[in-house]
């Protein structure tokens, strides 16, 4: 079929890179989502005035290119003598980056729940927390899910930038093989296919949940 020098051990090397991409993405999206929910709720609760400092910081994370954030983050942790491994630094920076976007998604989701629906919950004697837990959360999740999936897929691709800190993730692994084997098109094709395959479950999850919820909205 293909006349290629690519060996099984090279494929295993790519798989390892994919593993690193998945690990960085999973940690960052998980931590970024938790932080994003926290910040989003705070932003919604305290109003634009009191949330201004938080909003400012998050805007910085949203507007400065991720590559710069990674490099600066790495320099900062070195200056502060934190002694973080590149993996840790990458995850911390990517988490904050994810959190910055997730905050907006969460705030928008909470915003989408009509005031009277929430008042109805509170007027039945539900506490703020019960309202959040049983009414706001499920409704906001339905509204926010498509954006959140988009964010997750974006972070997965953006995570390639951690190669600048020396992590061998999927893209870096492909680059190494390209340099060695001089078969750029074939290897990048495989690399792209792997990105596609690991993205697929997340993209599908969105479609599945939307379908499951659609009769009730």
């Amino acid at each position: 079929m293909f006349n290629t020098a690519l060996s099984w051990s090279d494929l295993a090397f790519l798989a390892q890179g994919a593993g690193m991409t998945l690990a960085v993405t999973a940690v960052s999206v998980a931590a970024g989502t938790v932080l994003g929910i926290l910040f989003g709720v705070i932003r919604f609760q305290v109003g634009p005035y009191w949330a201004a400092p938080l909003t400012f910081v998050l805007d910085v994370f949203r507007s400065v290119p991720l590559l710069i954030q990674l490099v600066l983050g790495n320099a900062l942790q070195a200056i502060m003598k934190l002694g973080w491994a590149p993996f840790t630094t990458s995850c911390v920076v990517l988490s904050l980056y994810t959190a910055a976007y997730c905050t907006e998604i969460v705030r928008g989701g909470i915003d989408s729940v009509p005031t009277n629906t929430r008042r109805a919950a509170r007027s039945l004697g539900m506490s703020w927390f019960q309202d959040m837990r049983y009414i706001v959360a499920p409704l906001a999740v339905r509204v926010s899910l498509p954006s959140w999936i988009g964010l997750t897929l974006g972070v997965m691709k953006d995570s390639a930038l951690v190669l600048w800190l020396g992590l061998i993730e999927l893209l870096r692994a492909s680059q190494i093989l390209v340099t060695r084997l001089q078969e750029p098109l074939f290897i990048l094709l495989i690399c792209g296919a792997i990105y596609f395959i690991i993205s697929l479950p997340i993209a599908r999850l969105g479609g599945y949940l939307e379908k499951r919820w659609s009769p009730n909205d």
Partner: protein
Amino acid sequence: MIEIENVRKSFGSLEVLKGINLTVAKGEVVTIIGGSGSGKSTLLTCINGLEPIDSGRIKIDGTEVHARSTDLNKLRQKVGIVFQQWNAFPHLTVLENVMLAPRKVLGLSQEKAEEIAVKQLTHVGLAEKLAVYPNRMSGGQQQRMAIARALAMSPTYMLFDEVTSALDPMLVGEVLDTLRMLASEGMTMICVTHEMKFAREVSDRVAFFHQGVMAEIAPPEQLFDAPQNAETKKFLAATH
């Protein structure tokens, strides 16, 4: 008993309630009529503490609603409220909508909460709709569900804020019938409404609000047939 004493409330520089006094006794039905922006909805949301007030007092069975020491979540179990729209929890079935608060707020068992929910939904004529999601029902059915949901908490008082004004004319009747039924059962109610015929029928007293002031309050025959206040006369003339 609901006692409203000299309640004032502003949104920013706009004074929406300018010293409201009103006492509603157990079993009484008071309807509030008045022009748009006169403060009717605001008063209802102040009564169950959804909105703070600037001065004055609101007491429910002697408990001051806006006192710091008042447990509002507990107090609200006594005071049901139904709004004009967006009452339904759209992600829950009709039965789940009604069961949620009895389960989570009153801490009732699944069986007990379901028993109460089914009873109330049957009461408002929705026994066939238990497993349906709200968006599959008409506006009138959704409003009746909201009433059943409030009733499932066994409130002493019910507040209704223009519960029919977002409905097609065809559907207004069924909701008003539900309110009539509650009134005839002796429920203490404050209803904000634009339905003058209904107000005349069910009310013990009708209050007319004008620009944040309760301009007039009287039994329906008197308020509708022999209004004293010039603004009331104008309003009634405009609505007929």
